[in-house]
């Protein structure tokens, strides 16, 4: 009895590895593995390299430009990418809008937008959350009022990831305020270069600029940019939210984080011996390592079900909860491992071209910042509280 992939899957994995060895720019991989900052160009370059290989649009049907992989192949691909230090593909165009357009878009929308997603002409971001509409997304207020051949959009989105790089945004907007809140929402594509769109950075507690506020003031959007029927946006949004869940547990990222942690723990010393021989730290390390080993198998079990056609529903919530707990614990332990050197904050050391002397251990600079940044994992993508509610209701029928 052996736990492992099928020979075909092993062969596929070798193929992925060969591709990564050949194509993944070492400079980019070094940044990812060292938790350094990526530029817009780094991301665009990797996007183009994947597209050239036909491996960009993993979830798309083969006839639309997808690679035609099984669920398990998608998992292996994500895993190998994470271990090799590939950047994550920015999901908003490829993983989110693409499938939505294929299901709800007009022919004109499909033929215009889908190729431009693949070739990187358009860079999308997602306009969902608002200051008053987080977990309770349906309370959103950004209004789109019909005026001839246009909608006039006014309102504000927030937590818009990488909006500073994007030139397009897909939004949920309110087109009818007189009906039940889910029923008056529409799904609208907006060119961010239209007058009245303003992006303002949100700086997070680690000093990084990853998310934004996006303001809309009398922004005129052609009615042709409506996806699906007017006021059917909630259905579209729900479809999008349930899509693309193969890598929700972040196994590859956690394995990578564990490698990083182990390296630090074997080098740092405590009481004259390496930290990974300190009884309390070794126990913390072993606990999370075992939890991750278990999680790998849990994830493979869910995928095996999906492979056989069983759609993972609430199981995704389990993977999300436990997967993010493990990732948070790993960055928490890495922070602990550094001891006093978790304190220095040298964000300049994360930039391209930094060649100053590091403070403390060579890999210390991003660690505490990443610990704080990773608090987001249990908040975004449906907070872990929301996910626990789903498990209780859908899986446990409480």
């Amino acid at each position: 009895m052996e736990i492992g992939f099928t020979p075909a899957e092993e062969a596929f994995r070798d193929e992925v590895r060969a591709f990564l060895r050949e194509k993944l720019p070492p400079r980019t991989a070094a940044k990812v593995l060292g938790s350094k900052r990526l530029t817009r160009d780094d991301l665009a370059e990797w996007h183009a390299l994947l597209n050239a290989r036909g491996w960009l649009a993993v979830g798309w049907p083969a006839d639309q430009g997808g690679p035609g992989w099984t669920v398990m192949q998608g998992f292996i691909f994500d895993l190998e990418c994470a271990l090799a230090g590939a950047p994550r593909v920015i999901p908003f165009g490829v993983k989110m809008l693409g499938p939505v357009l294929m299901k709800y878009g007009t022919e004109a929308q499909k033929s215009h937008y889908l190729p431009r997603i693949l070739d990187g002409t358009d860079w999308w971001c997602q306009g969902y959350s608002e200051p008053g509409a987080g977990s309770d997304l349906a309370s959103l207020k950004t209004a789109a009022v019909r005026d001839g051949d246009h909608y006039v959009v006014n309102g504000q989105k927030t937590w818009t990831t990488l909006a500073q790089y994007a030139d397009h945004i897909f939004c949920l907007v309110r087109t009818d305020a007189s009906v039940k809140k889910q029923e008056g929402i529409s799904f609208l594509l907006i060119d961010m270069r239209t007058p009245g769109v303003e992006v303002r950075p949100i700086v997070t507690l680690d000093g990084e600029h990853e998310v934004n506020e996006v303001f809309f003031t009398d922004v005129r959007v052609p009615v042709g940019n409506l996806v699906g029927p007017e006021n059917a946006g909630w259905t579209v949004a729900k479809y999008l939210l349930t899509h693309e869940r193969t890598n929700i547990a972040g196994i590859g990222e956690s394995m990578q984080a564990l490698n990083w942690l182990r390296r630090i723990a074997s080098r740092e010393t405590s009481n004259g011996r390496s930290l990974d021989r300190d009884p309390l730290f070794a126990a913390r390390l072993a606990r999370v390592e075992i939890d991750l080993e278990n999680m790998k198998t849990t994830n493979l079990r869910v995928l095996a079900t999906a492979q056989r056609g069983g759609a993972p529903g609430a199981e995704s919530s389990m993977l999300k909860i436990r997967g993010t707990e493990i990732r948070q614990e790993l960055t928490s332990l890495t922070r602990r491992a550094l001891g006093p050197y978790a304190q220095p904050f040298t964000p300049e050391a994360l930039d391209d071209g930094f060649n100053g002397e590091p403070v403390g251990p060579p890999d210390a600079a991003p660690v505490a910042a990443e610990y704080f940044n990773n608090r987001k994992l249990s908040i975004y993508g449906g907070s872990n509280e929301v996910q626990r509610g789903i498990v209780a209701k859908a899986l446990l029928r409480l």
Partner: protein
Amino acid sequence: MSGFLALLPFWTAAMDFTPTDERRMLADTLGRYLATEYDFEARKRAMAAPDGFSRAAWAGMAELGVVGALFDEAAGGFGGAGFDVGTVFEALGRSIVVEPFLGTLLAGRLLAAGGADGELLASIIDGSTLATAALFEADGRYDAMRVAMRAERSGEDWVLTGTKAVVPMLEAADVVVVSARTGGQGAAEAGISLFAVRRGAPGVEVRGYGLIDGARGGELRLDGARLDASCLVGPEGGAAPLIEAALAAGVVALSYEALGAMGAARDATLDYLRTRVQFGAPIGKSQVLQHRMATVEIEIEQARSAAINAAASLDGDRHTRERAVSAAKYTIGRVGTLVAEEAIQMHGGIGMTWELPLSHYAKRIVMIDHQLGDEDYHLQRYIDLGQRGSPAITPQDLAS
């Protein structure tokens, strides 16, 4: 039962978690037998029987091939893989069966690995001979290598002196496989030998007692017990690897038994939460209890994955196997305590009554942590195994 559990109980081939047909049949047969012949009332009668278990049920299950499923063909069985052991013990756990399976599994595998004669093994598999294993001592706690019992040559015979602690189902055993030192000391692996001790032999003293989970155990005192040469099982002084391998199977068994019992406790708790009304609503509408049950469910799934990893490792290399085994027992111990305590707490007072099966499931789940090494023992062992030279995880590691 949740859909998740039902869908993916086993990992039986590369990336395919569905059970083989044979195992599905075994599970069905045993499940049906237990449902009809071993309900909670029958279990009470079994506990009240002179041996502390039901001779009839034992014979019945042996006849169904349940004992044979624990051993491979070389040993006269027709199973023996980790997932076979798991199939049997998960069903036993679901019905908190008190029959002498654990001792049989350990003793049988030790005897088979030690080249015992086929007749003895056959009689164990057909249920006519009861065997158990006495591998632990009071001062050794959970470390089976810390053996103080001495075996000394006396002519052609061996003379054994020492005491073994909390031996499962000792009183009824016809054969007890005991570990004793023919060399070495302390916790040294070298110098440990195995002996098959027959019931009622001179110098063999048995003190039996009930266990809090409803089964029975006993202290085995050997006071110059004289055994003939044929009683030596396996290589003289070289039994440590046999013991380690048998205990690995034992941990897989206990892990799956715990999964069965935890599943039953979880289901009983969900039922209670759905039906018990306080303040005009089922208590399962409490968001706090919902979130805590979600955690329980996630932990049980993680525990199942740990058990799968251990079961799959049984035939693998020693290092991989022992890491997986300790990871599983640690996980089962940690999760078991959580599940047992949450199940009682959510039931409230009724969950603490002898009358309700739930309380007995809780006791069994917690006591599994006290057999073959607890959470702390196996976490430390996992750490020690790693520090004896495990490489850092590599991309290859996922498939190993």
